[in-house]
């Protein structure tokens, strides 16, 4: 066998082995994320003659035409301030650069939009200026094939005064769609809850269509979730208690149902303030639903040491990252308990263990394992090459 064949075989084996140690990838189609901008906000804004008190809205449509869901990070760059005409009435700083970016505020609104370390509205100067800025504005979930309308509202506050007369501001808005990391499987198992209808995993209605006779008035309210006799993460669809369908039926869907999964970004922390909980909602409902989220930290003895509550509205899919930047925990083992409550009476409880290491004690085992995997793969391929070369040498000797 020629060396080139050895090399090809070795490379193929190495790739196959390494790939088997990491994230499996669908064989038929390579995954893609592909962001496309549309709407009035996608064409350059050319807004003139802005005076204090003026405002306007420009809508940009973000479409993920790829095959993978992602999150969109947004930042503003290339900010250019030009001192324009200086009428006699202009006061303050009349030299370059202009001051418009210090006064003009922008706010964005749309589904799944969140900010970190700053709040909206904000002046252009206060927006994140690159993807790795300490401030963030992002759309935390844009599904494959999904579209989100983002409304940008600009406003020049009435109190701006004459300082900005004639000034010109230009800037670039950047959108980066990034593939969402896959959720670990299996997802955390909801613990038992005493309330009926815990909404952990509900099969989409198209698999088990709910049907009611046409004689039922359209306004009849069918409960979205039938109270189950015991706590479970899989509520039974209402169809189980409805009369048998007649020849003509009308399918209906529960209005407020979720699949909920809760994960920790890292379960071994050097600082408790690094704790981040990701709660993912997948809605099979038809209406925006308010969800109460309660985050509780229990220590080793089961004592509650921290509690906080949030509320969010979920329309379709939604990833909610909860950060605990102010959390101070002494080194030790803890349990993060996440309670979700929606539709007034549907609750779930999720528990995840985590630990806070004494400083310097957290060892990066992940990297050690990864390094061992790589070394093992290389050694295996190397061994195969060695055997093949030895055989060839023997053959050539004989």
């Amino acid at each position: 066998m020629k060396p080139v064949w050895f090399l090809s075989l070795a490379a193929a084996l190495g790739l196959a082995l390494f790939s088997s140690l990491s994230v499996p990838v669908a064989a038929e189609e390579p995954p893609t994320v592909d962001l496309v901008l549309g709407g009035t906000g996608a064409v350059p804004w050319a807004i003139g003659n802005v005076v204090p008190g003026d405002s306007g809205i420009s809508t940009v449509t973000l479409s993920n035409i790829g095959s993978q869901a992602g999150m969109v990070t947004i930042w503003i760059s290339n900010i250019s301030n030009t001192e324009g005409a200086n009428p006699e009435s202009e006061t303050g700083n009349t030299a370059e650069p202009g001051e418009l970016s210090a006064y003009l505020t922008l706010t964005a609104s749309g589904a799944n939009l969140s900010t970190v370390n700053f709040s909206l509205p904000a002046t252009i100067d206060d927006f994140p200026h690159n993807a790795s800025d300490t401030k963030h504005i992002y759309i935390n979930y844009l599904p494959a094939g999904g579209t989100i309308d983002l409304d940008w509202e600009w406003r020049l506050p009435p109190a701006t005064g004459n300082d900005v007369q004639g000034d010109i501001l230009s800037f670039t808005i950047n959108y980066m769609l990034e593939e969402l990391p896959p959720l670990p499987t299996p997802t955390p198992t909801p613990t038992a809850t005493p309330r009926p209808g815990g909404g952990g995993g509900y099969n989409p209605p198209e698999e088990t269509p709910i049907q009611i006779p046409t004689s039922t008035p359209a306004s009849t309210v069918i409960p979205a979730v039938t109270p189950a006799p015991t706590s479970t993460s899989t509520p039974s669809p209402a169809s189980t208690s409805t009369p048998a369908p007649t020849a003509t039926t009308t399918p209906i869907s529960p209005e407020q149902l979720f699949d909920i999964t809760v994960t920790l970004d890292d379960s071994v922390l050097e600082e408790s303030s690094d704790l981040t909980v990701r709660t993912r909602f997948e809605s099979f409902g038809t209406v925006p639903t308010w969800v109460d989220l309660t985050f509780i930290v229990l220590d080793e003895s089961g004592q509650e040491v921290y509690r906080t509550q949030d509320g969010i509205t979920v329309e379709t899919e939604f990833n909610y990252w909860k950060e605990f930047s102010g959390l101070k925990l002494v080194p030790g083992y803890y349990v993060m308990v996440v309670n979700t409550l929606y539709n007034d009476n549907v609750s779930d409880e999720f528990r995840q263990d985590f630990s806070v290491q004494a400083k310097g004690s957290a060892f990066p085992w992940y990297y050690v394992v990864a390094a061992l995997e790589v070394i093992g793969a290389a050694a295996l391929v190397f061994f195969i090459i060695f055997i093949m070369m030895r055989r060839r040498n023997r053959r050539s000797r004989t």
Partner: protein
Amino acid sequence: MKKIVVLSLALVMVIGMAGAATFAYLTDSETSSGNQLAAGTLDLKTNDADGVSRTLYAVNMSPGATVGPSTITLRNAGTADGATLDIVFSYAESDGSPNTADKTADETAAMMEVITLDYGGSSLLSSNISDVNVNGYKDVEDLKNSSLTGLSGIAALSTKDFVISVRLRSETGNDFQADGITMTMTFTLKQ
């Protein structure tokens, strides 16, 4: 031995590339560039010159004499429409000599009746000026003490004329000989 080294290097490269490809998340970036916002300007000029104040001299007048009508053209040379206009009157004593019985500026102003006070083709006398000093006519002292705010504005690149004339009342006595005032009118165009 050389072959083994080459093969090993190739393997390391292949594994590195595979690892990078596997661990890197997919991204796609789009930009919306060239967004521009420009602030408008509001630039009031009087008689096509910079400055928002004009002066009217009422000196060396004899009883029954008139100053004016004096027309001041107000131009909004900016790009933004001015929604309202404010006018403020003030005056200072400007006496001649000899001035045996010196009257104050207010006393002199009270003897100067406003004959014309037009803005944009409409008279302001009846609707905006009141007889504050209650002497039976509308005079320059009344102008100072009246509020002339919130008048109609001037659109961008448009003009409006302001016209004023005053007359020294015919019953003015000899005590006012050589007394005079200098009137200043300040215009403020607001967005």
